[in-house]
């Protein structure tokens, strides 16, 4: 085979001693760099592990439920700790690449400097093998740096990520890790394994996100065993359900056109005979009505946006989910978030999600096989009503939005960092707010703004739940501009009816989807601070 004609013939044969010296010097430089890195990192790892374990113990002491899970958590930390070789240096500023070290190594050239995302202190940083759609969903909420197969270890070393994720959707055709999981592509599997090793060397947990069909991940069993957490997303089996969520804001495509036909994601899996039957029958039923799908030649985000914005409703992706697999695929959720109805086969997860909000149920038209398909397609042409749209968005925000899902993931991994505050709300309350009602809100505020300082007990309760309290003078509270400048969140809500558990969420949904303001008893309002 011809891996290059390069050999030592290219080196001048008349000066072997000089060459030898040059080579040894080169090797020595690299060895010194590695040693220096390892020393610094070891020191870092000690502190990091102590912190994590200590944090676990403190949390366990507070909560009997956490006490029960403590041994498992400690075991996980020990496992991570055992494999640690190094951790990155601490930094008070934004996290990013470590040029001071990497400049000593030529492979630094592999790392795309511009794509190393910096995370603000305390907010979540993620790197790994990520699919395009997962990147899109997470980017607004976390510092996400996607690694190509050849740059995985170098990027993990350069980025001080909280979590390293291997998303099997990144292995689908056209994605950066295409062929991962194909037994004929051993190099991809090794690259993923190197990513895991690099993460463990930094003391970082690795999550395997199985978001593709079991066929696609069947050869990743050994890799899964090396990961710290394996979760199953849409399309995979329901062993350990969790999915990356979607960014609902990315799917707001304006007015839904009337009678413009359906969106069909042609890139969906081939599926089982039943899936194919339903899809074929649906397409036959659509007949001459326009069917749109992403133009593969274009950038995927743009292609998806173009295609979806020109349609009235969509066919679910996939059209049928067996009882053993997870449903609620991102494309399906995205279509719903953009105000389009969905015609789909059996999908228990989607059904369960929409069932949480009564009005949302009719947004997805479920069919049993091919029966009732024609009627469903006919109904799908009707645009969603405003209440239905509110309900759908409410369900997605609470049950399938990326920030919520990332918070869940951080909880599961016992990571302090949290997703960015893209939709965090500061709530302006009266002098004696009902703390319980605040905590019962389905979309909790990140900050409570009051005129009078709250009691110590109230402050403590809120602090335990991650909610800050900020007393502000009357003149600031009365002035929207000053108030907006005084809070740290991107939204402010006031006069909210806290007896309604969806009080804050509904205002937020109204704002996000540009829906008409509902008449409310209180003069409640929510606005952006920027």
């Amino acid at each position, binding site marked *: *085979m*011809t*891996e*290059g*004609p*390069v*050999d*030592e*013939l*290219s*080196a001048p*044969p008349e000066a*072997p001693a000089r*060459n030898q010296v*040059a*080579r040894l010097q*080169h090797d020595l430089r690299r060895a010194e760099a590695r040693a220096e890195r390892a020393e610094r990192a070891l020191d870092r790892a000690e502190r990091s592990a102590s912190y994590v374990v200590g944090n676990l113990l403190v949390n366990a002491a507070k909560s009997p439920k956490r006490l029960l899970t403590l041994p498992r958590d400690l075991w996980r930390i020990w496992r991570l700790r055992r494999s640690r070789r190094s951790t990155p240096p601490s930094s008070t500023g934004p996290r990013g690449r470590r040029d001071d070290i990497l400049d000593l190594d*030529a*492979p630094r*050239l*592999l790392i795309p*400097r*511009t*794509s190393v995302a910096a995370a603000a202190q305390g907010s979540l940083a993620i790197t790994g093998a990520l699919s395009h759609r997962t990147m899109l969903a997470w980017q607004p909420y976390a510092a996400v740096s*996607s690694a*190509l*197969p*050849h740059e995985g270890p170098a990027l993990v070393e350069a980025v001080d990520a909280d979590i390293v994720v291997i998303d099997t959707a990144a292995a689908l*055709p056209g994605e*950066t890790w*295409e*062929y991962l999981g194909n*037994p*004929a*592509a*051993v*190099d991809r599997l*090794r690259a993923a*394994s190197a990513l895991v090793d690099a993460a463990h060397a930094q003391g970082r947990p690795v999550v395997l996100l199985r978001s593709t*069909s*079991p*066929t696609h991940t*069947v*050869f990743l*069993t*050994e*890799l899964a065993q*090396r990961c710290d957490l394996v979760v199953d997303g849409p399309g995979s089996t329901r062993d350990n359900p969790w999915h990356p969520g979607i960014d609902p804001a990315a799917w707001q495509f304006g007015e839904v056109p009337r009678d413009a036909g359906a969106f069909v994601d042609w890139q969906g899996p*081939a599926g*089982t*005979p*039943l899936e194919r*039957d339903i899809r074929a029958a649906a397409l036959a039923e659509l007949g001459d009505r326009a069917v749109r799908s992403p133009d*593969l*030649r274009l*950038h*995927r985000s743009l292609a998806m946006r173009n295609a979806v914005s020109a349609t009235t409703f969509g066919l679910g992706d996939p059209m049928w989910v*067996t009882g*053993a697999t997870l449903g609620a695929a991102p494309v399906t959720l995205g279509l719903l978030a953009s105000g389009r109805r969905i015609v789909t086969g059996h999908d228990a997860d989607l059904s369960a999600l929409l069932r949480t909000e009564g009005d949302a149920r009719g947004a997805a038209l479920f069919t049993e*096989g091919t029966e009732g398909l024609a009627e469903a397609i006919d109904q799908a042409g009707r645009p969603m009503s405003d209440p239905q749209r509110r309900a759908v968005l409410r369900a997605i925000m609470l049950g399938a939005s990326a920030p919520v899902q990332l918070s869940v993931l951080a909880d599961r991994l016992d990571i302090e960092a949290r997703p960015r505050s893209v939709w965090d709300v500061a709530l302006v309350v009266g002098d004696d707010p009902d703390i319980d009602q605040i905590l019962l809100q389905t979309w909790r505020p990140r900050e409570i703004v009051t005129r009078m300082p709250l009691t110590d007990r109230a402050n403590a309760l809120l602090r335990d739940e991650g909610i800050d309290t900020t007393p502000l003078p009357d003149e600031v509270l009365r002035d929207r501009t000053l108030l907006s400048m005084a809070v740290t969140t991107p939204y402010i809500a006031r006069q909210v009816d806290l007896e309604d558990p969806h009080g804050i969420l509904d205002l937020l949904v109204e704002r996000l989807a540009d829906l008409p303001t509902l008449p409310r008893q209180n003069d409640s309002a929510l606005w952006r601070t920027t």
Partner: protein
Amino acid sequence: MSRALVYGDVNLNILDGSAIWVQSMCEALSRSGVDVRVLLKAPVENDRLVAPLRDMPGVTVVDPFDGSNAGTPLTPARAVEYLESLDAQQSADFVVVRGLRFVTAAAESGILQGRLWTYLTDIAQDPLALDDEQVDRLQTIASASRYMMCQTEELRCLLESTVPAACGRSVLWSPVVPEPAFDLPARSAVSVDGAQVRPLRLVYTGKFAPLWNTLQMTEIPAMLADIGVEVELHMVGDKIHDVPDDPAWSGRMRAALEDSPGVIWHGGMPRQQAMELTARADLGMSWRDPRMDASLELSTKVLEFGALGVPALVNRTPMHVELIGEDYRFYVASAEDIVAACRGVIADPSALAMARTDLESAVAPYTMAASVDRMRNLIDRALPVAPPALAGRTTLKVGVVSHDLKFFTRIQEHLEALPELDVRLDHWDALASHDEARSREMVEWADVIICEWAGPNLVWYSRHKREGQRLIVRLHRFELDAGWLADVRIDAVDQVVCVSPFYAQLTAERTGWPSERIVVIPNWVDVEQFHRPKIGDVQFTLGMIGISPHRKRPDLGLEILSRLRRRDRRYRLAVKSKLPWDYWWIWRKQEERAAAEQLFQRLHADPTIRGSVSFDGFGGDVPAWLRRVGWVLSTSDDESFHLAPAEGMASGAVPALLPWPGSDTIYDTRWIHADPVTAAQAIHETVASGQWASTAAQARRQVEASFPLPAVCDEWARILVEDLSPDTAHGTLAR
């Protein structure tokens, strides 16, 4: 007639997959005209398998127990001793072996080394599960083997990517489908105009075990009856597994076989009878628990269904997709899927015929006839016949002198395999460093000396060779710039072999050597090694093999990619190469560092290409890697031959070259483009017009005709005794 020894390290009293393998291997060898001695591992207790072996023409069963049915099965060490003594009695051309424990022992045998044809399935099938010790063991085995016989392409890829010694000697040896000893029955239509006219017949044969989903299968007739579809499920077999974790399972299974509506349990049955019953069914059941999906082996049951014209309901496993294709209709994951599939068959019986055709064509390569063809091909390669020029000569002693044989390995193997030749090696430690005593011994011993590379080795041999001793040198490229060529005594050199007409002419011009001695034998391309199925839609994937030093011009590769991605975002570039800093003698050069900096800067900064280039490492597993590549680029400033496009062509990719000097003397000008812009334009036009597959097929035919390994090897055998025509140094190699 060639002679083979066969040992499967398997007890032939027990009918299982490995025993069937021994049988089919012996049959394939026998039908290929090989004289076979098959060594038994255990005393014969029944002759169900041994008797058919004895009946095969040219097959001798060697019973170390002398017909006694008592005795202890052979240990690996004893089996190796037996094989060595059999070889001593009558030398075997090759030794076919199976079973990791035994093969490990056989690989240590100095007598058997180099003649082993090794077949392994009992190795970890996940590369991450292979530890260093296992890899070392496989490396030893592969080094001792002429062939590593792999059951599937995936196993071959695993082996090549993990065990460097397996590269170039791993070949496919697929399962062999049994041939039915009866005519396949005609089946009547199961429905007319959507109305069922007879029961749909499903069949399952084999063991009853939880992972085989046999208990769930028994519920399917009732599920179908509920929706008005009448089904008979014929189940054949009498082995009901005991499940330690669920002791009641076997009872439930038996009860289900006996009592389930629509289930007809036939119990155990001789194989041919079971095949006859299977052949009368409409659909075969091979639906299994997903935990069975990770095997890299092929299910012989599915192959058998295909050979009997019965579409199989199978899991969508990677191996099944590879075998039958993505669009096969009867992939199932659940009982509901099976119900839907059966309902679909009633609604549209043509689905059965289509699936039958799909499966039949998928299993065609696994028939005994196809296996015999494969075997003959393997034998021809391993035991080549000398060209007429060497016929009838006494043994010719050939000395090969080089410090680097990476471009000569296959030729050396070929020469070593010719009985008319005795080949020895004078391996130089470095370009100009050697053991002079050994070289002098070589001068004394050899009839012909081949200097691979025109380095100081040529200078030395041209000054020390014996009178009348034939001296041949192969000059590649870099030597032309070296000063030592002036020291070569060209009168002592009989033939100067260049790999391309351009370099032959350049050599004549630069050195002033007599042009009648300068000839061309192209580089070899092991076309068969590269001929493998592509994975996925590769027409958008460009490939570059080797991007260092910078004269390989990876920057032009990026430019082509950038131009393409402006038209279609699906184009990608895969690079199989070490990186510049992996070569210390490259990385120390300032200009190389600057070029690398610039290259990677563009890679990260240019939005048209960012994230679309992967560096897939370095290694001998190029044929496996090329399965993912649709276009192979050759953008160098200068090459003597550049095998990458030729290897790409052999793999079924399309070459795209920029016009480096001499490229048109090797490759057809249709593949050579003036600059990156026109290269990108040609690539996109080919893809966009749907011509990629046919163009790739043309490229493959061309490389087969231009520089196939057997033809190149024959020329090398001929040049040992005959001068080649200087006309070879003109024109183009492209055919």
